[in-house]
């Protein structure tokens, strides 16, 4: 009898420990290579010194103030670009997602597949192709210039427009897919009900479709905004010194100038700013997606 009880108890403990065993390897990996580096980066941001003399921890909080004044343009520009690109992707992506979800019919999957096609091409190659498309004498500008519709010295490359359009191109699918997912789940009978209650099509859209697709707007905006703010590939390949983003600054501080404390401090500011932004945004839209 007592054997059975003991066995049961052992089985119970085993079961209650099971999730922790399952979590252990993965969470350890994230602990060692995500949490620990972040802490290490925090300490590095408080160091002083140079590559020649070595860096030493002096709790030099001053760096944070310094980088804020030194790179405020780039920080502000990154956030502005992030907002513009997110807005542009939303504007372009919403009708697209709406059409595929509501009127796609049997072409739905084929159309969706077309939207994710760019993911099968390397990000760097896609951006380089985009540079080619926008080139001064390229397929579009060249043709327009030959037709006399544009002045000869007109250019898009090395302007904010090139960087913004490159970013919009790269991140459009990230916006369109969550939008599609939320529009596709939408219960059409609600729209019919709205129609039965004499709502105009416009009104039915504003009062039913749009509010119910907000989770998609939320997810899509995050998937777009976060990577755009940190991106430096587009700014580097398509832009100029007037389009430098905060990602470029971090990359240069850390990998070119070996100014680790500054690079670490900016990274930390960027990370905190985004986390706080995301939390506020989540509060505003009241979504549970975060802790799902």
């Amino acid at each position, binding site marked *: 009898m007592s054997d059975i009880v003991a066995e049961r108890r052992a089985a119970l403990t085993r079961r209650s420990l099971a*999730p922790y065993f399952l979590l252990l390897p993965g969470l350890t990996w994230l602990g060692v290579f995500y949490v620990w580096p972040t802490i290490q980066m925090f300490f590095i941001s408080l160091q002083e010194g140079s590559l020649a003399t070595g860096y030493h921890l002096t709790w030099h909080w001053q760096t944070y103030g310094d980088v804020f004044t030194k790179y405020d343009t780039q920080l502000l520009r990154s956030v502005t670009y992030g907002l513009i690109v997110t807005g542009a992707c939303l504007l372009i992506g919403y009708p697209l997602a709406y059409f595929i979800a509501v009127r796609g019919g049997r072409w739905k999957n084929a159309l969706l597949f077309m939207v994710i096609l760019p993911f099968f091409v390397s990000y760097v190659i896609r951006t380089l192709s985009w540079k080619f498309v926008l080139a001064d004498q390229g397929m579009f500008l060249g043709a327009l210039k030959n037709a006399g519709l544009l002045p000869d010295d007109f250019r898009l490359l090395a302007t904010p427009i090139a960087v913004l359009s490159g970013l919009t191109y790269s991140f459009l699918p*990230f916006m369109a897919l969550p939008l599609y997912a939320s529009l596709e789940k939408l219960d059409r009978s609600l729209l019919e009900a709205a129609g039965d209650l004499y709502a105009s099509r416009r009104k039915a859209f504003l009062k039913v479709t749009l509010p119910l697709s907000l989770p998609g707007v939320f997810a899509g905006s995050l998937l777009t905004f976060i990577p755009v703010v940190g991106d430096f590939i587009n700014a580097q390949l398509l832009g100029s010194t007037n389009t430098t983003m905060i990602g470029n600054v*971090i990359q240069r501080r850390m990998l070119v100038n070996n100014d680790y404390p500054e690079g670490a401090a900016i990274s930390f500011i960027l990370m905190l700013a*985004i986390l706080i932004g995301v939390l506020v945004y989540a509060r505003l839209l009241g979504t549970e997606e975060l802790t799902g």
Partner: protein
Amino acid sequence: MSQEASGRARAVAEEEAVVEPARQPRRTTRGRGWILPLYTGLVIVYLFLPIAVMILFGFNDLKGRFNFTWQGFTLRHYRELFVFRDLTVALKNSLLIAGVTTFVATALGTMIALALTRHRFRGRAPTNMFIFLPMATPEVVLGASLLSLFLTFGTARGLITILVAHVMFTISFVVVTVKARTHGFNKEWEEAAKDLGANPWVAFWKVTFPLIFPGVLAAASLAFALSIDDYVVTTFVSGPTTTFPLWVFGASRFGVPPQVNVMGTIIFVAGVLLALGTVALQRRRT
């Protein structure tokens, strides 16, 4: 972060591509309006444009260094695909890293997803939140912090550090993907197997695993795609080692050889065929 997000969006897409609800044609919207279809067509052309450029210029018979103007058709670059030794090495590195990353991240991530969907335990909500964090951190910050760690300990950077980094940023995506697919998972089936005398190990491999397999497969292909495409994090932790994206980025300053277009085209075609094949296979099964 860009590629990470791409993973997530792609997970959503794959999900949608596989589960297709049979729906009646809607009489209210049929044949109405041409603006939206036209618009959708234009956006799709826009999305495809740079891909078309990449494919086309892999066939360009260029004379100089810069592959910017069309100079005639050739298959030369397909024949001479491996003439740049370091490009070939970079591609091999990328494939190796992506392969190992896929294996490790899928294993670790699936275990976490199983713990989160099949068990109630203390610390479940914080774990969910914690899994979200690496996805909400811009890639450039992930790279900078890993570099901080490796600098502090004087770790030599190379294949191993790239691997470690790739596994780190793909785990969360695997967890999210597998979790999405295991949500409606029926725990009773596994219990039934145990009641019939299967030990937990057998019950898992014979019952649970086949059920969650589509999710695991989706997560694995996602992990592979994220890893092979990563530039940002890799550039911080690579040291002297190059991967395919790093090589291409470096070459962009001096003119990218058409071999890059060809490799890009081959990866593109292989990926598309693989994805279509998977979908077809799953259709046949159901």
